[in-house]
């Protein structure tokens, strides 16, 4: 009966196959068949017209549908390929007709079941959706989701297949991206050292990371899906925390560094710091809370240990300060006693010796009088020693000012005083102009008195002398110096030079107590400066010292 040539693009005809032959008769053939039986003829005509209308409708659907529509014959050869198919694959209908899907369209390496369904539809559940991977003419892969039906009569063993396909490439990519993002997020959460929890709106645990399980020594079974506030013997049931979490959900806020000190069932007393943030799902669905928990216990303990150490240190400093103050007071009262009590007997020694010399001289021979004079001179020297010792101790106790000091003016004052004391001596003072420092004018005056006084004293054996006061560079910093061309000293005795009551000369050579340079050293050290000396016997000595400069104040 296959006498009628099917229209090349007649989908309806192809769907109906051989049994649809009457519907594919042309009008002329129908006229011939029906003849002039008028009623039958009319009915037949209307049937034919109806049939043609249906065919056109089907054809229109086939060609205009945005979905892929594909037909294969029982051998799996393509018999229908709509516009959507052409647009997707880049192949024209003529190129694919009579070919099978695997030989033309199937992407290489595709092992899915979809291709088999088109190639061997007999054994397939045709209505189940499945996915195939097509390769377009241009060589790109497209992922297509198919729903298929057999369109032949049920008694046939093999079927023509109608496949309706959707290009899900983009959707799949998006899904993959989402899945990838999720895996990425999960791997981050799993890797983070801090325990993390995800809670849903009902405060049920939706996710927890390994750090959480490890830190709180719980199993996923005890945790997942359980209410957060019931976890671990309700150890998180802290009203302020509950309030914060509820607020976060309702107001899209977050909180940072909520500190919790709690006796945890498994861990004991710990200090935890919690950070939380609301996370909205993209589908606009329920909100969730991401909760990060940090165990600060050790840090807090370290902090407390440090505080404790600081407190102890402070207490010790207080203690030591008090001890020092006591020691200082004792020293002061000692100095007071020294100044008062030691001098009184000296006065008696001196006074009565003097009285003896004065009123009883006629009863003493020269020798006796000489001894009495020696007693007086020893007494007076001891008085001077006591005074110098007190001065030295006071140097460390007096409060020190820090102000600009004109050293040139101070040195000139001292020089004038020395000249006034012994106007007959020939000593040239060369004092550099503009010498200045920061410090205590009174103390620096004492230092200069001693340095210049020494220079004056140790040049006394020379008919004329020069004393120089100036400034020079020493190791990149300015240093002052006092230089004389007097008796000098042997550098071998340098270590004794600045010691209190240490002398390099006898009283007969040069009188003195050995306190002067010790005094200078204390004054300079109290200013944070350094003092040192150079000397050559018979050629003179130079004393150097550094002081804070004005610009550094």
């Amino acid at each position, binding site marked *: 009966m296959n006498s009628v040539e099917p229209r090349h693009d007649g989908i309806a005809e192809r769907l109906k196959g051989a049994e649809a032959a009457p519907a594919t008769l042309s009008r002329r053939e129908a006229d011939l068949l029906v003849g002039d039986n008028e009623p039958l003829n009319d009915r037949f005509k209307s049937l034919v017209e109806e049939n043609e209308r249906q065919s056109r409708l089907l054809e229109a659907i086939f060609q205009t549908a945005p979905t892929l529509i594909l037909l294969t014959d029982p051998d799996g050869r393509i018999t229908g390929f709509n516009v959507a198919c052409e647009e997707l694959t880049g192949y024209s209908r003529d190129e694919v007709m009579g070919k099978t899907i695997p030989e033309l369209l199937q992407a290489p390496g595709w092992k899915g079941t979809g291709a088999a369904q088109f190639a061997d539809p007999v054994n397939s559940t045709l209505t189940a959706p499945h996915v195939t991977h097509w390769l377009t003419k241009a060589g790109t892969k497209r992922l297509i989701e198919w729903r298929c039906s057999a369109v032949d009569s049920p008694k046939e063993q093999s079927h023509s297949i109608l496949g309706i396909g959707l290009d899900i490439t983009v959707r799949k990519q998006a899904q993959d991206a989402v899945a990838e993002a999720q895996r990425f997020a999960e791997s981050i959460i799993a890797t983070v050292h801090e325990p993390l929890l995800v809670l849903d709106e009902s405060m049920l645990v939706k996710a927890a990371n390994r750090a959480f399980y490890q830190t709180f020594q719980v199993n996923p079974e005890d945790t997942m899906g359980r209410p957060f506030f019931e976890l671990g013997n309700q150890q998180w049931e802290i009203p302020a925390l509950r309030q914060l979490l509820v607020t976060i959900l309702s107001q899209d806020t977050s909180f940072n560094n909520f500190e919790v000190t709690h006796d945890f069932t498994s861990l004991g007393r710990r200090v935890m710091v919690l950070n939380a943030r609301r996370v909205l799902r993209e589908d606009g669905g329920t909100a969730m809370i991401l909760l990060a928990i940090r165990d600060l216990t050790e840090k807090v303990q370290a902090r407390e240990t440090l505080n404790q150490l600081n407190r102890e240190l402070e207490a010790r400093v207080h203690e030591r300060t008090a001890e020092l103050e006591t020691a200082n007071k004792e020293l002061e009262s000692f*100095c*007071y006693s020294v*100044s*008062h*009590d030691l*001098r*009184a*007997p*000296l*006065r*008696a020694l*001196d*006074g*009565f*010796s*003097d*009285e003896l010399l004065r009123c009883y001289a006629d009863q003493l021979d020269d020798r006796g009088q000489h001894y009495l004079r020696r007693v*007086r001179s020893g*007494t*007076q020297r*001891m*008085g*001077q020693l006591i*005074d110098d010792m*007190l001065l030295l101790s006071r140097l460390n106790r007096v409060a020190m000012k820090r102000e600009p000091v004109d050293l040139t003016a101070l040195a000139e004052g001292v020089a004038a005083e020395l000249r006034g004391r012994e106007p007959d001596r020939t000593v040239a003072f060369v004092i550099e102009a503009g010498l200045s420092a920061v410090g205590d004018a009174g103390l620096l005056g004492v230092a200069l008195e001693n340095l210049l006084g020494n220079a004056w004293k140790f040049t006394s054996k020379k008919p004329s002398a020069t004393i120089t006061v100036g400034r020079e560079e020493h190791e990149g910093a300015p240093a002052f110096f006092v230089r004389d061309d007097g008796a000098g000293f042997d550098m071998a005795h340098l270590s004794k030079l600045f010691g209190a009551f240490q002398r390099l000369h006898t009283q007969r050579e040069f009188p003195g107590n050995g306190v002067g340079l010790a005094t200078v050293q204390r004054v300079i050290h109290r200013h944070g400066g350094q003092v040192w000396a150079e000397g050559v016997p018979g050629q003179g000595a130079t004393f150097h010292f550094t002081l804070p400069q004005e610009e550094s104040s």
Partner: protein
Amino acid sequence: MSDKIILLVEDNEDDEELAVLAFERSRIANAMVVARDGQEALDYFFGTEANGFKDAKALPQLVLLDLKLPKVGGLDVLRRLRADPRTRRLPVVILTSSKEEEDLLHGYDLGANSYIRKPVDFTRFADVMQHLQMYWLILNEAPTSGGDRP
């Protein structure tokens, strides 16, 4: 001998004797009364139950006051003298071994007229005593009487 009296408040016997010696060496010799501690000095002025306040004529012209004294210290004696209207203008010279700045300032704050440190050298000490007498008993115009004005 002048009828002017010097009160020496001094606990050290040596110092007392030396002071007397020094005064003897000077040309002007005044009567010297010695109080050997702070309480004695106060008793001298303000009397005891048996012995009432000195009348104006018996008041010394000059007080030489040591600071470190048994019983009542020199500064306390000074404070009491300055607190009483009858003795508050009395010339008081602190004569001490102490050169402590604190004592010095305290002494002036309490109204000392002068502050002198006893030198160890007796020759100088004698000079000082002579100067003191010269200045305070001859050159200086003393406040008349004990000072009854308020």
